[in-house]
């Protein structure tokens, strides 16, 4: 923290000196790299575990080198190879997790992706207009509405899961994508609305008024302001997707295995006999790669938006 203090309020691009090296920037970059490295360590350990033979995974001290790397875990998890041909003597695995699931995880990744993308799109489609309206219209009950929306995230899943199960049973929505998508959307809409509202609040109202004086409709003004809250939209989308991707209890209770998301599948990799570390690690890393790429791609929108001066 103390290292970064001198730069607390520095603009994104400090004026670059022609020849002299900007040592402050070097130090800050090193601190940022070290912090990222520290946070990423458990994942590196996990990635290492996903290419280690069983007997090496839990060895102490953890081996960075000197083991025979194997892609067998990935062959089973992503390639549907027969697990018994590789590891039966090492893990005692019969190729099935608890709850009748196989270790072949492409279907789980597919289900998680459908639910995650579907609920994220729904969250944005509903939350953007709502957040805009709460920011722009003169609502007398804006504060109460905002708080009510927040309260919709307060019910613990531990007691919400069963009533929802009964409800979904009546509706025949068990194992239905749209059921999970709606539940995950309802779970994430409160954060999305309130977060986006804060971002819309930062954009001056005059812009909308000016646009509408120029003949734009209210919807046109709304669409114009979207590009000004890009950073907020990206942050919201990433969060909504991650929350859906990670959600465990509701996905477990509202499915029977026909649809099975990654967290639910992961839990079946711990059988009564053993935890299948290799498969668990391989699935964990495999499910992380697409999201990492997604974040890398979208975060260029997380740059400083247009400044006020540029808009006027």
């Amino acid at each position, binding site marked *: 923290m103390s290292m*970064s203090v001198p730069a607390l*309020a520095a603009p994104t691009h400090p004026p670059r000196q022609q020849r002299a090296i900007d040592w402050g920037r070097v130090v800050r970059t090193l601190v940022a790299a070290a912090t990222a490295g520290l*946070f990423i360590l458990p994942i590196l350990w996990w990635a290492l575990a996903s290419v280690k033979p069983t007997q090496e995974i839990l060895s102490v001290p953890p081996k960075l080198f000197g083991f025979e790397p194997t892609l067998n875990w990935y062959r089973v998890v992503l390639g549907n190879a027969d697990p018994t041909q590789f590891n039966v003597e090492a893990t005692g695995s019969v190729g099935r997790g608890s709850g009748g699931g196989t270790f072949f995880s492409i279907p789980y990744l597919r289900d998680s992706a459908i639910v995650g993308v579907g609920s994220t799109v729904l969250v944005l489609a509903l939350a953007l207009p709502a957040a805009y309206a709460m920011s722009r*219209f003169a609502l007398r009950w804006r504060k109460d509405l905002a708080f009510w929306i*927040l309260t919709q995230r307060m019910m613990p899943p531990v007691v919400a899961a069963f*009533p929802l199960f009964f*409800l979904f049973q009546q509706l025949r929505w068990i194992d239905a994508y749209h059921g999970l998508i709606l539940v995950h959307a*309802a779970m994430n809409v409160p954060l999305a609305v309130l977060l986006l509202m804060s971002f819309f609040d930062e954009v001056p109202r005059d812009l909308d008024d000016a646009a509408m004086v120029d003949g734009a409709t209210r919807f046109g003004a709304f669409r114009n302001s979207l590009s000004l809250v890009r950073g907020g939209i990206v942050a919201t989308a990433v*969060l909504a997707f991650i929350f859906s991707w990670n959600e465990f209890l509701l996905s477990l209770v509202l499915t029977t295995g026909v649809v099975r998301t990654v967290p639910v599948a*992961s839990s079946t990799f711990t059988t009564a006999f053993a935890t299948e570390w290799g498969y668990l690690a391989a699935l964990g890393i495999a499910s992380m790669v697409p999201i990492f790429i997604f974040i890398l791609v979208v975060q260029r929108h997380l740059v400083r938006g247009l400044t006020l001066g540029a808009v006027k």
Partner: protein
Amino acid sequence: MTNADRVAALEGRADSYPAREQLQARGGRRLLSSDRAWVWLLPVVLLLLAIGIYPFLYNIWNSFREFNPMTGRIEPVGLENWQRLVSEIVEPAGRVRGALWTTAVYVVSALAVEFALGLGIAVLLNSGVWLAGLWQALLILPMVVPPTVAAVMFKVLENPDYGAFSYYLQQIGIADKVEPLLGGTGKYALQAVLIPDIWQWTPFFVLILLAGLKAIPSEPLEASQVDGASAWQTFWHVTLPMLRPMIAVAVLFRLVDLLKVFDYIFVLTSGGPGTRTEVISFYAYQRSFTTIEWGYGSVLGLLIFVLALVVANLFVRVFKVAW
């Protein structure tokens, strides 16, 4: 205005919006008025009601019933469950009382560390470092691990015998095998549970606060610097106040989620040793699913809801959240 017009307005077919001229004729102020706000808000409200209201009402109803193992049926018990809640709060050794205390310690520690770290990292990443996007994408990754899986990872990492994390802590002399993070007497059990929480949710603050920092217009910052304010003064008097709305949302949601924290405790300690790490939602789970006291579980679930309501309301008032 007909419903078709409203749909047209929402779907952006603005040109086919016949009432437009008429509305504009009445002046631009008409468009700013709130009378059509419900069109924009209705979908969200409907979704939240559709998914939220049934579990809520069900738990209220269920709190006046209890599963009877003798008859195998759920029977009405009147206020019994609520009386039990009161007695478990009032008695000095009451389990709810203990769980509430543990929850308070857990929530305050996690929130303080995650917010401070998250703000620090967000400011650092916004201060013009090279490859900021890469560090940021890497820093978000811990959030991508499902909490149940993260808890399993840390259960291995913190294992005193074969855990890599414990091994390195022992090597640098912070931990030893007599008082390990996990197991042993459980002296550090709460810290052991907090570590994965902090690891996963510091990035939550980084993501939101960094997006907030980027959304701050540069003029006030530049003006402040031109006026000769130090970097620290600019941060404290210009940046932080402008970041306030995002800080409020991030803290409020993390607060509400922390009050429901369950996964890490379930996997790492199961509330133990004894009830040392038993937070309120884990106790609710125990009553609902281990001892099959569904009615009392509903009472505890509603307690969490009310608790979140009170704490969030307090936060909104004390920090004057400008909604």
